[in-house]
């Protein structure tokens, strides 16, 4: 058995276990967050290094574990993104964990386990592994959300997350069971082959009756069993990416969860959700199913974009605002998924999805890094309490501004290029989807309104005369480093997007 491909996962797993064991040996009376974070960061860095080293070393991925684990190039990309996200989350969390959480060991261990679930999720190639990795990610997220035990909101968020999560994973499983019944297999590749070969059996044919005019249905309707499977699976995954109407948990969970956990959910969980959605849809794509799921995704995309952006305008709580913003971003990414359905726009769509998810992680975590510091400074996550913070901390304020503008999709930040690829892919599908692009573009303008509100509060407002000069309050090194990495990332990816393009082109050649 070839264990080299799974080595990064093994390292992350060992890290998670190592951290919890290390926690036992450390004196609980002394501050131990730093040591635990260091150990965890070391493990994650090692895993990321291994992953990249294997890739650059020319290691060719092979299916292992009887087809359960397929670390193809897409998976390599997303695993790198996920490990990066985990590292950034780790960096920005240290201060918060030290101040607010009583269980640093459990926090870091669970964070690593959740990351591990996400890693397995993006490279799973059969339904059982897929489901189990999803649950590993989900259940550890539930616990992470509940981890701030002194806060009632934390528990409330956790229970809401848990209920919604369990129901939607049950829906998805029901869909899985139907697919299993239809195809007789759990393996993604076999399911895809089956649908290609016998997909036409799942369509109601309307044959012309003599003497009557020909029926209007050329391709017919999908039979209910396949349709139900598709709807249920998409519903379950729609929850993971917080697409409307499966978004109900998101605002409350974002608000109630500890801030680093919110950051983690908004980055890692979303990346894992989209990577897995791409893989599932690729599995379920055959001539008969593609038109159906395309229609569904279009509806989800439009609803998410419009709803997320419009409701975000009214938010006063930064965490809630980011929840709605993340819903809207799910909508933009779903537009890319729509463009996956056609051959001519497929390359562009893949590029858009890969690029945007990478950039999304950077800009979101950059924003959260600054927000965690500001929240600690002002002891609040309400927008009006942040007045003038940008003036006190011009550098962090600048990073936050850059991330917000990138989220809006303004040049010269990478978010702009990402949106360009996504919208471009949809444009390539032809003029029948131009209205979708128009909605996307116009709602980006709407999003500027609420992002600009944050910027306005940070910079335009009157500085409260707290008498503290910027120099005496330097943010923690790691947090500053995380925000710096994000900033460099979103600027650098704008100027040098080529390596991502080349990488995705490589993926396409393999497909």
């Amino acid at each position, binding site marked *: 058995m070839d264990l080299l491909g799974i080595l990064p996962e093994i390292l992350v797993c060992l890290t998670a276990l190592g951290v919890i064991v290390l926690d036992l040996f450390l004196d609980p009376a002394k501050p131990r967050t730093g040591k635990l974070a260091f150990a965890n960061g070391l493990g994650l860095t090692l895993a990321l290094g291994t992953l990249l080293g294997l890739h650059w070393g020319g290691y060719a991925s092979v299916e292992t574990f009887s087809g359960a684990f397929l670390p193809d190039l897409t998976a390599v990309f997303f695993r790198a993104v996920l490990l990066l996200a985990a590292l950034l989350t780790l960096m920005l969390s240290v201060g918060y964990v030290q101040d607010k959480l009583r269980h640093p060991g459990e926090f870091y261990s669970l964070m690593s386990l959740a990351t591990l679930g996400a890693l397995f999720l993006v490279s799973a190639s059969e339904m059982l592994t897929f489901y189990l990795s999803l649950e590993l990610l989900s259940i550890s997220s539930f616990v992470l959300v509940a981890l701030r035990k002194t806060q009632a909101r934390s528990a409330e968020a956790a229970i809401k997350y848990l209920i919604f999560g369990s129901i939607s994973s049950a829906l998805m499983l029901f869909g899985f069971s139907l697919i299993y019944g239809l195809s007789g297999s759990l393996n993604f590749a076999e399911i895809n082959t089956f649908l290609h070969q016998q997909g036409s059996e799942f369509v109601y044919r309307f044959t012309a009756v003599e003497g009557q005019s020909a029926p209007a249905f050329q391709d017919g309707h999908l039979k209910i069993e396949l349709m139900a499977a598709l709807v249920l699976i998409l519903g379950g995954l729609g929850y993971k990416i917080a697409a409307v109407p499966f978004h109900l948990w998101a605002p409350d969970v974002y608000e109630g969860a500890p801030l680093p956990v919110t950051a983690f959910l908004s980055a890692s969980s979303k990346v894992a959700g989209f990577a897995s959605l791409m893989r599932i849809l690729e599995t379920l794509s055959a001539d008969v199913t593609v038109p159906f799921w395309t229609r569904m995704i279009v509806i989800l995309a439009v609803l998410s974009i419009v709803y997320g952006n419009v409701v975000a305008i009214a938010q006063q709580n930064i965490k809630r605002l980011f929840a709605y913003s993340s819903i809207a971003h799910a909508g933009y990414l779903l537009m890319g998924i729509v463009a996956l359905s056609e051959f001519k726009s497929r390359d562009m769509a893949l590029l858009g999805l890969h690029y945007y998810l990478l950039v999304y992680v950077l800009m979101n975590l950059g924003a959260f890094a600054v927000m965690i510091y500001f929240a600690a400074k002002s002891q609040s996550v309400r927008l009006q309490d942040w007045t003038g913070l940008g*003036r006190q901390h*011009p550098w962090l304020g600048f990073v936050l501004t850059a991330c917000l*503008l990138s989220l809006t999709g*303004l*040049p*010269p930040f990478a978010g*702009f290029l990402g949106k*360009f690829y996504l*919208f*471009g892919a949809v*444009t*390539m599908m*032809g*003029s029948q989807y*131009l209205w979708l*692009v*128009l909605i996307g*573009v*116009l709602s*980006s*303008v709407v999003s*500027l*309104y609420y992002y*600009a509100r944050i910027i*306005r509060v940070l*910079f*335009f407002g009157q500085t409260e005369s707290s008498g503290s000069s910027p120099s005496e309050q330097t943010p923690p090194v790691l947090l500053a480093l995380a925000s710096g990495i994000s900033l460099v990332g979103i600027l650098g990816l704008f100027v040098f*997007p*080529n390596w991502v*393009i*080349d990488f995705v*082109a490589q993926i396409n050649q393999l497909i």
Partner: protein
Amino acid sequence: MALFKSNRAHFYHWLAAFWSGLTLILSLVLLSRYDLNAAGNAFQFVDRLPWMPQFNLQYQVGVDGLSLPMVLLTSLIVCIAVFVSWQTQERSRLYFAMLLIMETGVLGVFTSLDLFLFFVMWELELIPMYFLIGIWGGPRREYAAIKFILYTLLASTLMFMCFLAIYFLSPLQTFDVITLLQNQNNLLAGMGRPLQIALFLSLFICFAVKLPVVPLHTWLPDAHVEAPTAISVILAGVLLKMGAYGMLRFNLGFFPDMMYWMAVALAVLGMINILYGALLALAQTDMKRVIAYSSVSHMGFVLLGLAAFNPIGLNGAILQMFTHGTITALLFIFVGVVYDRTHTRDLAQLGGLSQRMPLAAGLFVITALAAVGAPGMSGFVSEFLIFTGTYGNSLEGLNHFLIQGATIASALGIILAAAYTLWLVRRVFFGPMAERWQELSDINSTELVTVTVLMILVFVLGIYPALLVDYINPASEHLLSWLPKVGG
């Protein structure tokens, strides 16, 4: 071409002055080395660098007779704006950084020869503007800033859509402006007529917001009033030109036949702009608002010149862009001078200031004359060219007369302009003076230098317009050569 390397200047006024001065010198060098004898259609100093070769995307810049005056204007006005804002103390580092980033953006707009780069630069100019208005602006700055950015961004989304469609739906699959302009005939091949019209109109609306054309102009007075002086100078002097530039470069360049088809509409829009702006200017009590609306009026002349579809009118329009840039900059500088001393722009409170600041009053009178379009100054030349052009416009039949009618109606705008400008002069500098203005000082040397430089330019162009028209004319002839029926 090193014009773009000027952003992110780090500290203080001198550094900003140095960079913007350097940019000005460089653009003058550019002017002197520009080859007048080359054919009008060629872009010169083209510089290209692959950016995303997979998408035929590159960093490509260059200038022609249309963009060269604009580059010159931009670097001049920004340099002047730096001196105008010499007094800015509060967070000057950020202020000048923003100013220079904006200059980068605007220069990029005028020189980029790649649609994608053009769009990036177009947006790049927005963000600093938002901060400049929002942080250093007047009492209602937040409202003005967000209104400005939302208007412009909404408009530019239309442009973005249009560029996407041009790239992905046309057979050319490129953002390269030079290639696109050379192949404009099959640029739109394979697209239905409604889509073509939609593309054209979305581009037009985008630039119309920036110009601004009348129903879309409401952001302008707010932004002008709330912005600090130097920013008003840039806003009126440079940013409005971006709209006109876009219209000439892209609407006329990519869709010449549709532009031609819209000629009458253009003339009428221009006329409305001129008259409506002038009438509203008459009704204002805020100095800045008067000038803001006069900008609307003056930019109407650009539209009108465009509608002539002959080189004379087009030369006039481009020249008008330049002269309006200089003259409005002058006007705003004077508003700034007055406001710095009196801390009010309310015409009801001002008056008789010439007793305390005679030099400023004298100079302001000259500027006002220039704004009105008195002979001997550049405003006169450009407006004269526009009127001659449009009166002898190259359309046929009824349209010909319709445009002539619009021209005559617009001539009324000149009278109105005289009315509101002279009225402004009278209300501010003459008449009885309130007691509290006794302590005012006259215009200082920094201000005097900036004003003089601009004023010399106004006179020079007024007396010897060929200085610029020589550059402009080949470009405008080339632009018109694509038209289906016009013989140039």
